[in-house]
């Protein structure tokens, strides 16, 4: 048994308490520890990805109890990929948070950050459905802390909403798990897959409910219509780096649907045949529309980006909803892309807003390094809108190409294409207002529409953004460039991932089939 499999969970889990309790009075020390830990995490994740690339499924039997009786961790290409994305994103965000001093604007940022990583990695690695719930809670509660980090009126109220909606989600999760256990008598995902195959269609009513409830739970995380409402408010009011980190949180929901509704309730299971897809598809289409409208109608920068995230989740899930290998590959590619695209935009927005009086989309005197920020925004925007040459375009093509089934093609294609037009126009508006029109205004001139009952303008720092502040955005964008330049190899890896994901037998045998040593 390979003990490295659990490292992505244990490392932050042990580091966080130390940071939070031993180093809580020394921000510098905490920073060093946090960065070191995150780098280590990234390295480990890389190693695990390499390990999984071999195509084998590593199973880690916690407490040395045989599956399905104990809890198992399962490292396959998918989980390895997700952990890798997480760690890289985390590193980017962390650097930004430190460079901009966000981490010092409240207590316990780094501890919460590490706990957040622990939760996310745990959720990606676990092979047990109840343990998935537990780690959902870990990552959620950590995210509550990060969301309201450094307080403030709007943020507190938005944070309250975020907490409430997610508590409702967690409750539903438990209802789903109760139903699932009552109908299958097991919690191990592989075992669930086995038992689901044995449930005949005419006795499937209850387990179908369980499957549906689970899907809704994950949909809340993935911000799918009609449970996406929470996202814009939350992301728009979260601290910039936190919003960027949250880019992975929505993906946790997507991951869970991919994992559970492919492996357990997926294709070929007659009990829940076609249940997920038939509801996911329309939901995803509407989600795309919601995102597009939001982007086009946004009044402020952060909501604009937040809605573009909603839209991207729609695009991602529309691919997932097909539950075919090609579509899943497309979905995964788009998943990676949209994560870093969103992160880049949020980080950039944070830098820009810090230098403007508010994040209202209105012309103000040009900020320092207007050109640089404009260029970065342009790059981020075309990434999000799915324009070439960044990976968004390829992702979109992959998704469209994968959705050729006659019953979906019309809706899927028009949704994706029209929404990207709206996104392009929306971002163009924003960019031209923020970076172009501002150059027409003399610096001393008062920005029009001042003081419309909006919160106190954050004092604009004239300070140039240093390398450490720009670098994270650059890196995030660089990832996108890599993603499109090396689209071929990436897609190969993802094809393998998909194949593994759809190989139910393979998963089951590697989890339950093998015996534990000792």
């Amino acid at each position: 048994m390979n003990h490295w499999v659990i490292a992505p969970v244990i490392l932050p889990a042990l580091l966080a308490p130390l940071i939070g309790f031993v180093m809580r009075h020394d921000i510098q020390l905490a920073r060093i520890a946090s960065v070191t830990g995150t780098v280590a995490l990234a390295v480990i994740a890389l190693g695990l990805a390499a390990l999984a690339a071999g195509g084998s499924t590593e199973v880690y039997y916690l407490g040395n109890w045989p599956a399905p009786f104990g809890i198992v961790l399962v490292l396959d290409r998918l989980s390895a990929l997700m952990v890798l994305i997480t760690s890289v994103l985390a590193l980017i965000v962390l650097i930004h948070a430190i460079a901009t001093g966000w981490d010092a604007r409240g207590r316990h940022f780094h501890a919460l950050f590490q706990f957040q990583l622990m939760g996310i990695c745990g959720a990606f690695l676990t092979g047990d459905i109840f343990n998935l719930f537990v780690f959902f809670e870990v990552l959620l509660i950590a995210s509550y802390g990060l969301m309201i980090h450094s307080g403030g009126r709007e943020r507190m109220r938005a944070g309250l909403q975020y907490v409430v909606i997610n508590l409702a989600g967690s409750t539903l999760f438990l209802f789903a798990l109760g139903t699932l256990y009552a109908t299958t008598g097991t919690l191990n995902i592989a075992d669930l897959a086995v038992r689901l195959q044995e449930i005949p269609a005419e006795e499937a009513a209850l387990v179908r409910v369980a499957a549906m409830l689970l899907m809704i739970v994950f949909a809340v995380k993935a911000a799918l219509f009609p449970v996406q409402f929470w996202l814009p408010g939350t992301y728009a009011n979260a601290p910039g780096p936190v919003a960027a980190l949250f880019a992975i949180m929505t993906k946790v929901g997507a991951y869970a649907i991919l994992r559970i509704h492919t492996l357990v309730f997926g294709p070929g299971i007659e009990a829940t045949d076609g249940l997920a897809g038939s509801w996911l598809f329309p939901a995803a289409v509407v989600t795309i529309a919601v995102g597009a409208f939001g982007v086009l109608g946004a009044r402020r920068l952060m909501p604009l980006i937040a809605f573009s995230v909603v839209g991207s989740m729609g695009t991602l899930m529309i691919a997932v909803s097909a539950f075919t290998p090609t579509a899943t590959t497309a979905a995964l590619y788009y998943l990676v892309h949209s994560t870093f695209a969103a992160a880049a935009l949020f980080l950039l927005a944070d830098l820009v807003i810090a230098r403007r009086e508010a994040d209202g989309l209105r012309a103000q005197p040009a900020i320092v390094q207007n050109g640089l920020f404009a260029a970065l925004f342009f790059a981020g925007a075309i990434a999000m809108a799915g324009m070439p040459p960044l990976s968004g375009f390829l992702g979109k093509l992959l998704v469209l190409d994968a959705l050729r089934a006659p019953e979906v093609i019309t809706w899927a294609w028009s949704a994706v294409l029209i929404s990207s037009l709206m996104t392009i126009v929306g971002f163009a508006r924003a960019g031209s207002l923020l970076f172009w029109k501002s150059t027409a205004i003399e610096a001393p001139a008062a920005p029009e529409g001042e003081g419309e009952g909006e919160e106190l303008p954050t004092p604009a720092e004239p300070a140039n953004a240093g390398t450490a502040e720009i670098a994270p955005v650059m890196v995030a964008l660089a990832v996108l460039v890599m993603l499109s330049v090396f689209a071929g190899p990436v897609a190969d890896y993802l094809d393998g991932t998909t194949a593994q994901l759809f190989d139910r037998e393979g998963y089951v045998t590697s989890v339950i089939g093998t015996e534990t040593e000792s």
Partner: protein
Amino acid sequence: MEIVVATSVGALTAAGVYLILRLRAFAVILGLALLSYAVNIFLFASGRLTVNQPPILSPYGEASYTDPLPQALVLTAIVISFGMTAVLVMVALGAHLESGSDRIDLDKPDAGEDEALEGPAQ
């Protein structure tokens, strides 16, 4: 007995849902607390109901025991929901102190923060 448990879960859920749809944070907190009771019983019931068969192994003889697993799950759930409730209460308090109201809904977004479009070329 099953009917008792089922109705209790139902009642708690209904009350909880009604309360989380109220407009004040405190009512929502109460609602979530009720929901967590409901879900705990629900989860517990997924092990089916038994009377006087606690899963405490007795040294002598073949006793029969109820399904211990759901109990463990419920314990975990209780603890987690306790932590969550605590945070929720604190956040609600914070929101109340910061904004002076414990309404749960946000105020409507204030209009006219930007020009909808640049006017025609002047």
